[in-house]
């Protein structure tokens, strides 16, 4: 009996390591796969799986192994799962991270490991771009301030004078407001930070907006919160009277719920599904074919995370033990991004374009997003100077 147990354990061990001597490229991926924000995690996971499929399941001839972990939308859980990935699974890369507070809690766990690279597929808190910048950290998204800065520029260029700001009270929400203020030079007539993530009822804030009589409102609420803000904005009768400008409110995931509520509400983003480059066309077409819906920017950035890893692994010819060379290859960003080519800033955040997008209906009558202009070209984030890496 004992011998049989031993034999099956050995067999299991062999199954887990499919080819002796040929070690796989292990990638951990942290996102939210449960609760009200699970739709974002699903979109990211689908994009990662599509990227692996496009790579033929291999990087530099070695098999790719992706381990997904659910942060449950909580910083402490995200940190535990990051620990599990680096210490127990011994992954070579950790990607993902939707939320800035989850990423901040997990950062040191991953980067201090020494031989693990962290690539944020979404969150970009200002501290990681500045004083907490790290040679083992890369981003395939943006620094939090940048997207709202692009929107601030757009609002400024429109000649709007008085703006009311509403955002969520956590790391990213605060970055969003300071980003908007970098570029918008008019008067801020009011500013609200709402309880995150519990608050979904914005009655008090909406009443204040009406009383403050601004020319426009700028808002940041990712995922389910954005859907609620927009529908309550309409119920209060503010839609159509005070124009709304957004960052991370309207995307491919919220549109099926928002429908016409999203019409006429512009947003800013560094990637839009209609960007005219070959790899993006392939990504969007194959995603739609495989899953029947449009990918979101969360997915596009996750796809880029896998492609960036692939470019570096190919660059070091699969020898990922050499961290100096591996980091040098990552820094080159030598891959075809779905947003078009980009370079890394000294703090490993992309230098890239930001676009203004609006909601339209496609040929099949589905709601989707369309690029209507470039708000910022080759934009660098504002925190590179505070980062010690040169």
């Amino acid at each position, binding site marked *: 009996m004992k011998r049989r147990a031993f034999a099956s354990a050995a067999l299991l061990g062999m199954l887990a390591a499919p080819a002796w001597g040929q070690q796989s490229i292990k990638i951990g991926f942290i996102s939210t796969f449960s609760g009200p924000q699970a739709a974002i995690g699903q979109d990211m996971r689908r994009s990662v799986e599509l990227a692996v499929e496009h790579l033929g399941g291999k990087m530099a001839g070695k098999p790719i192994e992706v381990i997904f972990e659910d942060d449950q939308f909580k910083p402490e859980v995200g940190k535990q799962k990051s620990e599990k990935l680096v210490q127990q699974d011994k992954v070579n890369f950790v990607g993902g991270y939707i939320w800035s507070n989850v990423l901040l809690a997990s950062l040191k766990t991953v980067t201090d490991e020494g031989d693990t690279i962290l690539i944020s597929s979404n969150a970009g808190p200002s501290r990681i771009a500045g004083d907490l910048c790290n040679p083992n950290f890369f981003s395939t998204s943006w620094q939090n301030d940048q997207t709202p800065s692009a929107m601030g520029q757009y609002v400024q260029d429109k000649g709007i004078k008085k703006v009311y700001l509403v955002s969520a009270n956590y790391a990213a929400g605060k970055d969003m407001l300071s980003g908007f203020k970098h570029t918008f030079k008019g008067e801020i007539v009011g500013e609200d930070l709402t309880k995150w993530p519990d608050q979904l009822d914005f*009655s008090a804030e909406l009443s204040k907006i009406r009383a403050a009589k601004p020319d426009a409102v700028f808002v940041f609420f990712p995922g389910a919160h954005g859907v609620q803000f927009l529908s309550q904005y309409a119920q209060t009768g503010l839609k159509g009277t005070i124009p709304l400008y957004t960052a991370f409110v309207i995307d491919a995931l919220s549109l099926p719920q928002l429908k016409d509520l999203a019409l006429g509400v512009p947003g800013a983003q560094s990637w839009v599904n209609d960007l005219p480059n070959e790899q993006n066309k392939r990504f969007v077409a194959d995603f739609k074919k495989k899953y029947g819906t449009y990918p979101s920017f969360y997915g596009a950035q996750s796809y880029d995370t896998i492609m960036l890893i692939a470019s570096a692994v190919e660059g070091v010819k699969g020898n990922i033990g050499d961290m100096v060379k591996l980091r040098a290859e990552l820094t080159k960003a030598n891959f075809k991004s779905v947003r078009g080519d980009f370079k890394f800033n000294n703090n490993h955040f992309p230098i890239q374009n930001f676009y203004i997008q609006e909601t339209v209906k496609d040929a099949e009558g589905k709601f989707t997003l369309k690029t209507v202009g470039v708000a910022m070209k080759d934009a660098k984030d504002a925190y590179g100077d505070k980062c010690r890496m040169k």
Partner: protein
Amino acid sequence: MTLLIEQLLNGIQLGLLMFLLAAGLTLVFGIMDLVNLAHGSLYMFGAYFCASFSAWTGSFVVGALLALPAALLLGVLVEVVVVRKLYRRDHLDHVLATFGLILIANDLVRLVWGPDGRRIPLPAWLSQPIRLTPDLPYPAYRFAVILVGAAVALLLYWLVGRTRTGMWIRAGASNRTMIGALGVNVEALFTLVFGLGAVLAALAGLMAAPIVTVSIGMGDNILILAFVIIVIGGIGSIKGAFIAAMVVGMIDTVGRAFLPDLLKSFLSVAAANTAAPAISSMMIYLLMAGVLVWRPTGLFGARS
């Protein structure tokens, strides 16, 4: 001035919603001495039932009216199958068992309805503002919530205070053994109370649904607030739950609405912006701590 009135209405609306949730909880806790953590799951099921029924019938109002009897059935089912076995156990067992019910409920919803949130579309006449006075527009739906919430509160007041069933319920809250000895069918009374609590929770859930998304675990956060309310109001007291819910709703709204400006008058703008959201989310708990020091049984507690 209109801003103040508008914010007061917002506070009343939030308070009434929380009252509906807390009323059921306080009845179950006070009369049956059962700590029911799964009360928030009944709130969630109310919202999901309403989402399905309104998608099926094409009308939010009809969907809501169908969701209530469905919630009653669910409540009675849960009482008969699970909760009934818990009365003789102690509170720790209640917490463990009903926490298990939360996990089951969340996974059940994921199986049946999927992981994505759902929006319940409102009919046109509810999704626009109405003018209460010429310069005071107010969202029609929120006003409707106030009307329905107030009507249900009055109905409960009549039911508990003026009817024979209400008399048993009140007697049950004060002395359970005695009403059993007086020949009241305690088992049936408990099933009734639990079902009534389920309907009230479901009503709160389905009325909150168009304002907050219908999503898995939507009742888990608000349940904490409901517990705060019944502790402040006094366990088992409908009147206490009503007053505490109104106070909590008002404090929450007023804190969000006016605290930042108040703090700005003596702090820097940046400091006020950081402190205000933190303080306003703490105020409810400070209130609870204060009430507990002053009156350990709550404002209208029937017993400690």
